[in-house]
């Protein structure tokens, strides 16, 4: 049976038209492709390259600093220096006490308060005392 112009096309008929349109692929001209690529080049985002690592060059001070051991060594050195200065400028009376008399800080040659041997060791000269008592 012939279909009349009054009858709308069915889906399968219409699909033939869509299929024909799908096959009609547009081929861009070379000029268009070149123009698009030129735009792409012109508007390509500029990406900053990663900065090159700087060469590690040490100055003379940094060399000495690292040679002596850095901050811990410098702290020890400073402590020792301060202690030396303190010992040099102060009367080291405490030093005598701390050393148990091994280090004598006082002037024991001219002082009146020096002790005689019998004061320190009464038993050592005991016989003399007895002799004097016996007179």
């Amino acid at each position, binding site marked *: 049976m012939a279909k009349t112009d009054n009858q709308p096309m069915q889906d399968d008929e219409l699909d033939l038209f869509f299929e024909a349109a799908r096959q009609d692929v547009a081929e861009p001209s070379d000029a268009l492709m070149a123009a698009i*690529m030129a735009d*792409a080049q012109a508007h390509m985002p500029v990406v900053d390259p990663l900065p090159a690592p700087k060469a590690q060059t040490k100055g003379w001070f940094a060399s000495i600093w690292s040679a002596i051991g850095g901050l811990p060594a410098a702290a020890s050195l400073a402590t020792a220096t301060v202690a030396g200065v303190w010992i040099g400028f102060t009367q080291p009376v405490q030093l005598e006490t701390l050393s148990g008399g091994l280090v004598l800080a006082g002037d024991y040659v001219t002082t009146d308060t020096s002790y005689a041997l019998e004061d320190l060791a009464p038993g050592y000269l005991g016989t003399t005392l007895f002799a004097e008592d016996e007179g």
Partner: protein
Amino acid sequence: MNMALDAYEGASDEALLVLYGNGDPMAAQLLTHRLAPRVLGFATRLLGGDRAEAEDVTQEAMLRLWKQAASWRSGEAQVSTWLYRVVSNLCTDRLRKRRTVDLDAAGDPEDGQPSAVENMMDVDRATALQDALNRLPDRQKVAVTLRHIEGATNPEIAQIMGISVEAVESLTARGKRALAKDLAGRREELGYGED
């Protein structure tokens, strides 16, 4: 160079756009080869077969894509969807501007443009469909072209046109009905008179 292009062949459009955004010109080359024919085909159909104007639209749409590359938000939209939307808007603007021009005259294919369709019957069908599409309201034309020629899904069309999926279904249904009625009048001419 071709080996490098081959290596990019499996990459998605979005991945290529990110590569281009990172300063890779080869990604732009592949994207152009991949997208420009589709954009041109879509623009040509929306503009009633005006190839020269469609090429202008294609270049403009691709230019906007390049400019968008640096700020492209990953995962938000497909590159092709975004492009179809740009093309749709550009074509709609141009169609509005030339509203006074005779649509039949605008629909004539340009001389000297070889068709990719070899079969004469298919050439006639494609031409007849284009003529019928040109007589559709713009939104129906966009929806039907995207759905039945470009192969987009309804949710994609909804995203491209900025409308709901239900509105897309309504537009494509009405568009198809109008096409079916319009093309029925050319049955004899296109050799559909007999079963």
